[in-house]
């Protein structure tokens, strides 16, 4: 029988290896799933993971990769700080919607002004909208001790209702002949978030995502805020002794994730989505949670995880068209990836041992770190 033995410190080698192993395991399990659905598993996996990058339509799908990865990375980087510190903002989808709504509303107030200032103003408004929405669970948690998981999630449902209200009411296109949805923002030059380099898919949101990764990396590795976040996650008591204020940490982490999610929403609604419509959001806020964990809550890891997750989105769409694989299968596939990752995490924290094999005596294991220091 196998027994688990707690490692004195998490294994760094396994921390790098587990995401890769999880992806491989997901491919195998996914292949079995696709076979069960009556599709050729090898072909399906190839369509999802290979064809978007190197297939016949790669010149079209490669830019899509960055378009999809941009918001995922931007949101996930924001979430990772809170997740590290044990602050669970799982309502990023709501903050994403609110950012798009407030940003678009501010922009549309200036319609049809052609000014270079409109777009930056909209980005700021979008970020502020996301921050405001994220501060609701943060302030309630600080003031009343409510659970931020539940409140931030409830606010997602409130946000989707607000979105429906706005798309059919205040933000509806007055020249839209009664169709739901706002004016087309991507066709209004002052507000449009266009492709900056033709054929690459890079728009302002992608650039913001890249900047967020760099800034987050510096914050985490070099800044006292990153230290506070890591400390609070590993030992809240130690953090309290070190003078980290829990309330301020909650506010900072929630505002950060909300702001980035809100900005992501604004970039999406002015670019790829083009307008405020009832269903412009496609669940990036939830998928970003998977991205954050898959990237080990580390900025560089999140960058890679975001690209991988974007790949499954695009590959999934291709598999839908070419192999008539159901869209839900991809959602299942993404959920499976997170399961495998969480399951394999056990290898990072614990050592597997056959029962009966000689175990390192406990005093020696405890003494080892002291000798090293």
């Amino acid at each position, binding site marked *: 029988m196998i027994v688990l033995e707690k490692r004195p410190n998490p294994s760094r080698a396994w921390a790098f290896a587990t995401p890769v192993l999880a992806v491989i395991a997901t491919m195998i399990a996914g292949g079995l799933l696709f076979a069960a659905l009556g599709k050729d598993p090898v072909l399906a996996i190839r369509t999802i993971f290979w064809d978007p990058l190197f297939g016949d339509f790669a010149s079209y799908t490669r830019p899509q990769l960055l378009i999809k990865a941009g918001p995922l990375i931007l949101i996930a980087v924001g979430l990772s700080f809170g997740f590290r510190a044990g602050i669970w903002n*799982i309502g990023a989808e709501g903050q994403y919607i609110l950012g798009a709504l407030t940003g678009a509303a501010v922009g549309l107030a200036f319609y049809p002004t052609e000014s270079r200032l409109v777009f930056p103003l909209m980005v700021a408004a979008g970020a502020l909208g996301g921050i405001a929405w994220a501060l609701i669970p943060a302030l309630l948690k600080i003031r009343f*001790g409510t659970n931020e998981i*539940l409140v931030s999630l409830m606010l997602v449902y*409130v946000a989707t209702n607000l979105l429906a209200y706005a798309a059919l009411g205040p933000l509806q296109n007055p020249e839209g002949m009664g169709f739901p949805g706002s004016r087309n923002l991507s066709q209004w030059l002052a507000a449009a978030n266009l492709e900056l380099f033709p054929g690459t898919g890079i728009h302002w949101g992608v650039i913001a995502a890249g900047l967020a990764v760099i800034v987050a990396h510096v914050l985490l590795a070099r800044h006292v805020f990153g230290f506070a976040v890591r400390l609070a996650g590993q030992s809240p008591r130690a953090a309290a002794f070190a003078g980290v204020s829990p309330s301020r940490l909650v506010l900072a982490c929630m505002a950060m994730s909300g702001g980035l999610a809100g900005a992501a929403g604004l970039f999406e609604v002015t670019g790829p989505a083009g307008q405020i419509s009832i269903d412009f959001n496609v669940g990036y806020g939830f998928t970003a949670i998977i991205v954050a964990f898959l990237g080990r809550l580390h900025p560089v890891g999140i960058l890679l995880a975001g690209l991988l997750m974007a790949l499954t989105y695009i590959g999934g769409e291709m598999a839908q068209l070419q192999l008539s694989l*159901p869209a*839900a299968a991809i959602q299942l596939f993404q959920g499976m990836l997170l*399961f495998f990752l969480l399951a394999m995490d*056990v290898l990072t*924290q614990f050592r597997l041992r056959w029962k009966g094999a000689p175990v390192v005596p406990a005093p020696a294991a405890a003494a080892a770190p002291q000798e090293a220091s």
Partner: protein
Amino acid sequence: MDLGGISPILLLASLMVASTPILLAALGELVVERAGVLNLGVEGMMITGAITGFATAVATGSPALGFLGAAAGGAALSVIFAVLVLWLKSNQVATGLALTLFGLGLASLIGQGYQGIRAPSTARLDIPLLSDIPALGPILFRHDWVVYLGLALVAGTWWFLSRTRAGLTLRAVGENHDAAHALGYHVLRLRFLAILFGGACAGLGGAYLSLVRVPQWTEGVTAGAGWIALAIVVFASWRPLRLLLGAWLFGGISVLQLNLQAANVPVPVEVLSMAPYLVTILVLVLISSGRGRARLAAPGSLGQPFHASR
């Protein structure tokens, strides 16, 4: 606007029906949390139960078998959670979220062929004599059997937790798993059973939505009911009888807002649809703020992984 069309007796009767899915799911989660495990995958297990129950009922033509299939579906999904959390020591919050995302995907995959089909109807079970009582009869005693099952499960859970030896052990495991382990109780085995029960209950709750409330399969049929169930457990301070109160409150709000929509109240439909979620937040604030009461009532080992070092 036509508020006169709303009959208080019908409103209360439909409140009983509307609260049943949340009640069932919350009851399962309550037992899981009393055992010291936080399963945030209620929404995923609910929607999986909704579709497995629906599929079983359509295939067999029997709603009773459908509910059985739903319980099995919810429990099966919870096994994944249990293995990850109990034996592979994964983070409970992250695993619960993964379970919800996975369940939503699984349900819409299974549900593909079932859109637009009507479920076989669940028969109403009027309780003789009692159902003839004026006012109280229609409110309490003219429902389908699942409503009664929900109420019976609440009573049964209360009795189990507070009056039986096994219930006491379960609470001990939830309050302090190290102490319970030292006393020789099987912490992981008990938690596994509790998680299975939670999954089965969530499945039943989901099936009540797809088989009775709606009654057909639509994607996202649970619409956050699983999350509201989680909130109600906090609201109830982890006590079964208070759970009933919480579920009725939320059932009441959702029924009321539907009635107000039908009565053409001059408030946008979307604002009315927000009401249950906003009230959930409000209630969470009220229950958490009373000198930190809610947190004091939470089981001591809630959300912490258990690893027997010896």
